[in-house]
C-alpha cells in the first residue's frame, strides 16, 4: 500500500496555537528563550518547505515503508472481542499492529521523519530526550541510518529501568546523557534537551511526542499521521467503513494523535485517549494529566494542560516510563478541551494484568504502555455495549523492554 497524502484538517494559528473559541483557551505557542528563536525558525521554515518538497516527501515515504515498515497489519482480535462480551453484544475489536515497526513502536515514524528533515536542513547532530527509551532508540536508529550524531537526554531514574533499549541506543552509536535534575525522569530530560538546543547551533532538537514549542507538536503529528493515514485506508478495505471508536494510550499523546488525526473530522468515529492512573487517581500517584485534573500551564516551550504543584510542574507517577509525563501535547489538550477526544484511565496494576492476559491469551508481548489502553478499551466497549460496532485499539508498541518488570510481577503473583 502507498502512503496516502497528508491533508491539513486542524491547522494551528501561524504562531502555533490551537484555540478553543468558546473558552478562549489557547494551546501551543512558542514559549522559549530568545536564544532558541533562530533555531526554531530554521526548523519551522524548513518543515513547511520540506512537506511541500515532492522529492523529499517521496523519499521519506519510501523509507518509511521500507526501512520503518509502516505498512503493519490491522486485524480482528477474536480473543479481545470475546473478552469484551462477544460479537453479538459489542461488535468487533481490531488491533493496529504498530508494534511491528522497526524499533517496535510508533515513535520511529516521526523520529525518522524529523531526523531526515534535520539532514535536509543541514544539521549535523540531533538532540532528543527519552523516557521509555522507545523514542531514544527510534531516534538512535534513524541517526545511524542517516549518518547524524546524537545526544539522548534521559532522566537518571529512567536510565536504570529500561536496559535493553538503552543498550540498543548505545549500539547505534548514540551518546547517552543522564539527567540528574529534580525528578530524574522524562520532564527534566526534555528540559535538558531543550537547554542543549540553545547551546548547540548545529544541532536540531527532536521531540519524543506531540509536545514542545511550535512547530514540534505540528511536525510530529503531521509526520506521524502516516500511521493513521494507512490505518484509515486499511480499515476501510478490511471492514468496509471507518471504525466506530479508536482507543489509544496517552502519555504525551503522539501515538494517539498519529493514528487518530485523519479521523478528526470523521463524525462517526469516537476518539478515546487513555492515561495512566498509576497507583490510582485518588492516591495522587498517577500520570493522568486530564484524569487527574490538570490545569493550563506553560512548560517546555508550550502552553498546555499540566499537573501543577503550586507554580511548579508536579511530579507524575506510573510504572510505565513512556507515560510518566505531567502534561500532554498541545493539540491533544485542545481536542480534549473542545470535546473531540474523550479521556479514560487505567491503573498500573490493571495494565500489568492486561500484559499477562495479552501474553497468555492473545500471544502478543505488548508494550506496557499499550496495556493501559487495552484494559480501558475493553471496559469502555463493554459499557457502550452495542452490536455491529467496529472498535480499533492502537497497539502502539512491543513489550521487550518491559519483560524484566513483568517477570517480577509474574513471580509475585504466582
Amino acid at each position, binding site marked *: 500500500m502507498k502512503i496516502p497524502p497528508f491533508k491539513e484538517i486542524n491547522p494551528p494559528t501561524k504562531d502555533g496555537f490551537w484555540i478553543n473559541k468558546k473558552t478562549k483557551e489557547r494551546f501551543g505557542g512558542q514559549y522559549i528563550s530568545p536564544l532558541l528563536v533562530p533555531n526554531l525558525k530554521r526548523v519551522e521554515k524548513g518543515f513547511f518547505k520540506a512537506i511541500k518538497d515532492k522529492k523529499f516527501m517521496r523519499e521519506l515515504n519510501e523509507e518509511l515503508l521500507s526501512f520503518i515498515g509502516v505498512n503493519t497489519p490491522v486485524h480482528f482480535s477474536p480473543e479481545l472481542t470475546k473478552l469484551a462480551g462477544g460479537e453479538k453484544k459489542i461488535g468487533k475489536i481490531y488491533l493496529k499492529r504498530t508494534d511491528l515497526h522497526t524499533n517496535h513502536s510508533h515513535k520511529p515514524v516521526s523520529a525518522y521523519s524529523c531526523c531526515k528533515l534535520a539532514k535536509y536542513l543541514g544539521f549535523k547532530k540531533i538532540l532528543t530526550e527519552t523516557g521509555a527509551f522507545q523514542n531514544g532508540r527510534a531516534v538512535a536508529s534513524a541517526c545511524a541510518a542517516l549518518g547524524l550524531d546524537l545526544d539522548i537526554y534521559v532522566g537518571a531514574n529512567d536510565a536504570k529501568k529500561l536496559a535493553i533499549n538503552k543498550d540498543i541506543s548505545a549500539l547505534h552509536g548514540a551518546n547517552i546523557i543522564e539527567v540528574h535534575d529534580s525528578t530524574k525522569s522524562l520532564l527534566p530530560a526534555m528540559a535538558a534537551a531543550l537547554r542543549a538546543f*540553545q547551546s548547540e547551533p548545529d544541532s536540531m532538537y527532536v521531540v519524543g511526542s506531540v509536545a514542545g514549542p511550535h512547530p514540534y507538536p505540528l511536525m510530529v503529528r503531521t509526520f506521524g499521521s502516516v500511521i493513521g493515514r494507512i490505518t484509515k485506508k486499511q480499515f476501510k478495505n478490511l471492514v468496509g467503513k471507518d471504525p466506530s471508536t479508536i482507543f489509544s494510550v496517552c502519555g504525551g499523546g503522539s501515538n494517539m494523535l498519529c493514528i487518530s488525526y485523519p479521523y478528526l473530522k470523521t463524525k462517526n468515529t469516537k476518539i478515546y485517549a487513555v492515561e495512566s492512573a498509576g497507583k490510582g487517581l485518588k492516591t495522587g500517584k498517577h500520570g493522568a494529566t486530564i484524569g487527574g485534573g490538570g490545569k493550563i500551564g*506553560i512548560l517546555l516551550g508550550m502552553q498546555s494542560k499540566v499537573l501543577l504543584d503550586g507554580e511548579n*510542574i508536579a511530579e507524575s507517577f506510573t510504572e510505565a516510563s513512556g507515560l510518566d509525563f505531567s502534561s500532554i501535547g498541545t493539540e491533544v489538550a485542545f481536542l480534549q478541551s473542545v470535546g473531540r477526544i474523550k479521556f479514560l484511565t487505567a491503573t498500573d496494576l490493571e495494565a500489568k494484568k492486561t500484559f499477562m492476559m495479552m501474553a497468555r491469551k492473545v500471544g502478543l508481548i505488548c508494550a506496557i504502555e499499550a496495556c493501559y489502553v487495552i484494559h480501558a478499551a475493553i471496559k469502555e466497549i463493554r459499557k457502550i455495549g452495542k452490536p455491529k460496532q467496529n472498535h480499533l485499539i492502537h497497539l502502539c508498541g512491543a513489550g521487550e523492554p518491559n519483560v524484566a518488570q513483568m517477570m517480577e510481577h509474574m513471580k509475585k503473583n504466582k
Partner: protein
Amino acid sequence: MSKLNNLFKEAKKNKKKIFIGFVTSGDPNYKSSKEIIKEMTKSCQIIEAGISFNTSTSDSPIIMEANDRAINSGMNMNKTFKLIREVKRETKTNTCFVIMTYLNPVKIFGLKKFINQCNFVGIDGVIIVDSNLNSPEEKILINGLSKKKIGYIKIISPTNDDEFIKLSIKNCRDSWLYITSYFGLTGSKNVNIDNVKKMVKRVRNYSKEIPVAVGFGVKTPSQVKQVSKYADGVICGSSIVNKVAEGHKKRLKGKKLATFVSSYVKKLSRGIKK
C-alpha cells in the same frame, strides 16, 4: 520615565557603568537569602532576583541547583515579593530590583496580580525568560507593566536576527536590553568579548539610546572591566550563585553566608570602578 531609565541615564551622564548582580531568591532558604540580598544592595545598582521554576529550560546546572534549593525550602512567587519588600524596608536601599523568572509561575500566580504585586512591592523591572514576542501573555505583561512604569527586559543573543533585535528594543523602552555574550546557557562558558562588541554595534544600528547590559559568562573583576568598556551595564549571575552554593556547602548561614557571598560580589563590582 522609569527608575531603571533614570539610573542608566544618570550613569551615562556621569560616564559610569551599572553593575547588576543576579541571585536566586530563597536560595538556600528564605532567611539566608534575605541576608544575602540585603548585603548585595551595598555593591549592586541593580539586583536581579530569580524566581525558581522546576522545569526551567534555559538555566545552567548551577542555577538549576539553586532552583532546587529554593523550591525545597518552600520558596515561591509570593514569598519573593515579601522578601524583596522586607529587604527594601530594612535597608532603605536605592538599588533597583528586577525579577527574573519563567512564564509558568507568573501565569499560575496570575498575570494581573503579578503586575500589581510588582507595583506594590516596587519592582523596577521584569525578565521572563520564556515569554516569546508573539505570545498573548507577553502583550499583557508589556502593557500592564509599562502602565506602572515597570521595565520589561528582553534577552538577545548573537544568533538573533535584526528583526528580532528591533522588536526587542521596542519592548525594552522602559529598561535595558539584555545581551548574552554567547549562544548557550548562563554560566556555561566564559564571556565572549568579540561577541559583545559586535552585538552592541548591532543594537546601536537601531538605537543610540537603549541601554545595553551584558551577561552570560562574566565571572571575574577583570571580565567585568572588559565588558564595561562596551556595555552600559554588566550582569554577573552564575558565579554569584555558585558562591552561595559554596557557602551553603560550608554550612554557612544567615549573616555569615551573606558576608561570604557579598564580599565576592563587592570584588566583582569593583571591576567597573577600576
